[in-house]
């Protein structure tokens, strides 16, 4: 199919992608290059460092306590992702595919939770968590419950999954009902495998949100035991001076795991999902 038109189009496609890829990654390239510079080089605004200063990474890792924070971030993120996927899928299903009283009102309320700015939600959420801490047998504050439970249900995720589920054909349910399946089996047996792409999307974004959260973890923890990696990144900016080379090294350290995970799963996002068995 290598027609002239096809090849011209191909240039356009790769040209456009290449242009955006450059714009997109240029600041990150800067970050990377700065992370390998000495302080002097960052001051003199050189473009490329003379030698690669791996020592920056070692120093950033040690001083910002990245080892401990890393572990915490991974644990918290894993819990949040697992919980969010489960709760959101469960909630999206009736909203997308069932008729029941109050459906629209519930959906509106769920969306409403997105509409209030964070600076005013932190205090009431903290009060709730404190109350839970005091009245339940296990610890909430300074431990994983306070860091994960408030985020287990997320209107974005529910909304996204609902949109996706709504787009699937109605014949699927008819076929399942004929086979005698109930809603539960339908959701987890038939729809779940079809939802790989949006579920991975939701998982990915939940992971990133959890990974970069800063203000809330600081609020509900008192010690480094459960603090995430974003707290460590703060170490290098003080009111008296910023050590850009260390800060960038820290930022790269914090970014790499997320990129790695994304790299591993991004193929799954776009392998075409064919609706087998329902042609006609």
């Amino acid at each position, binding site marked *: 199919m290598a027609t002239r038109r096809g090849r011209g189009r191909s240039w356009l496609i790769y040209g*456009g992608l290449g242009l955006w890829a450059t714009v997109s990654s240029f600041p990150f390239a800067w970050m990377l290059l700065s992370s390998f510079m000495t302080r002097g080089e960052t001051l003199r605004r050189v473009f490329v460092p003379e030698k690669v200063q791996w020592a920056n990474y070692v120093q950033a890792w040690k001083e910002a306590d990245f080892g401990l924070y890393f572990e915490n971030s991974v644990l918290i993120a894993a819990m949040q992702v697992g919980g969010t996927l489960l709760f959101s899928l469960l909630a999206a299903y009736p909203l997308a595919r069932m008729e029941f009283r109050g459906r629209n009102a519930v959906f509106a309320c769920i969306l409403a939770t997105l509409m209030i700015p964070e*600076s005013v939600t932190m205090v009431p959420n903290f009060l709730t968590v404190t109350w839970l801490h005091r009245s339940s047998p296990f610890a909430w504050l300074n431990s994983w419950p306070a860091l994960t439970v408030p985020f287990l249900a997320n209107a974005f995720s529910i909304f996204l999954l609902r949109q996706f589920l709504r787009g699937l054909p109605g014949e699927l349910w008819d076929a399942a009902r004929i086979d005698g399946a109930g809603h539960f089996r339908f959701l987890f047996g038939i729809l779940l495998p079809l939802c790989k792409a949006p579920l991975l999307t939701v998982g990915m974004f939940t992971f990133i949100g959890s990974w970069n959260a800063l203000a809330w973890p600081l609020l509900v923890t008192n010690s480094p035991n459960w603090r995430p990696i974003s707290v460590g990144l703060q170490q290098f900016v003080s009111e008296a001076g910023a050590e850009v080379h260390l800060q960038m090294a820290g930022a790269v350290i914090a970014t790499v795991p997320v990129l790695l995970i994304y790299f591993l799963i991004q193929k799954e996002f776009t392998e075409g999902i064919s609706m087998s068995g329902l042609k006609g």
Partner: protein
Amino acid sequence: MDNRTKDTLIAWSFLAPALAVLAGFGIFPIGYAFYVSLHQWRIRKGEYIGFDHYLRALGEPGFLVWFIAGLVLLWCACRVYRSLRDRQGGGYLPILIAAGLGLPALWLSLDQGLGGLLETGDHRLYNGLKITLFYALGTIPIQLGISMLLAYLLFKSLRAKGVFRILLFLPYVTPVIASAVVFRTIFSPHPSSVANRFWALLGFENCRWLYESKSVVGLFLRALDISTYPAWVDSCFPSLALVSIVLYNIWVYIGYDTVILLAGLSAIPRHYYEAAEIDGASPWQVFRNITLPLVSPTLFFLSMVAVIGTFKAFNHIYIMRTPGARDSVDVLSIAIFDLIFEFHNAGYAAAMAFVLFIAILALTLVQNRVLGKRVFYGD
């Protein structure tokens, strides 16, 4: 138990876990914010003052009534126009009648209502809303447009998909602390900054970028040597600082949007495309008649989420704020933050937050009504 009741029970039980969390951590804060806004509340609860905070922020209630009444009349004018047009089938009469109704309504709403509100209300609130509007209008269309294009290109490209996908996702994944520092350097007024060097390449003078509080239109006029212009030019257009932040935001969120659009595109069953190919459809026809409708649920999601997100936007903007930009980048979320952390006035902040909440709610409902009808759900 009949099927319908059984279904309702099942539906609610599926919803229960998510609703429990959302009720406690999503809905309760809204109610709490409302409660706080009714009191004099610096750090701890003071005395009950009813809607005083709202009056102080919004202005005299009379003007608010005019403003809303004007909008309602305007909407009536639209409906009258539409029904008359359908009945008459054209001609000047419907337009005249609609204009006769609509123009005074517009005057009522804007001049009387909005004018009065701006005078008697809190400048911080209205400036916040204005800047938020600029910010949203600047980011959303460009963001969605470019992402749709990129998602489509990515979908069609055959080679190096993985590499491209990683590169375009980088901005969203990078911690804001780091990418904001880089962008503050890119958009700094220093002659060696990337923005200035790029600008110099195009033959223009250095600009102050993030430190520039004058509007882009004002700067344009100055470049043409027109240095006196009416004040509204500066106040009715976004400042260069805000434009710089908008560019930063677009850079960050295109990755987010594109990834979601890709997921949506990938869900379109292949057999549609195969059928189109058999029918000999051109790529534009395929895009318009197959891709666009089938990806419209995702696009709808993104536009809703984008509106809600940009109206609430805080983190990126806070980090990119400079003294030089003055209040030209202070979206409402930032005004609210300042009220809590600098002015130590939680009650007033809660009132403004609630106003923001209502504004976003209203916008979402309007958007849902206007766009929701055009979404194609595949059945």
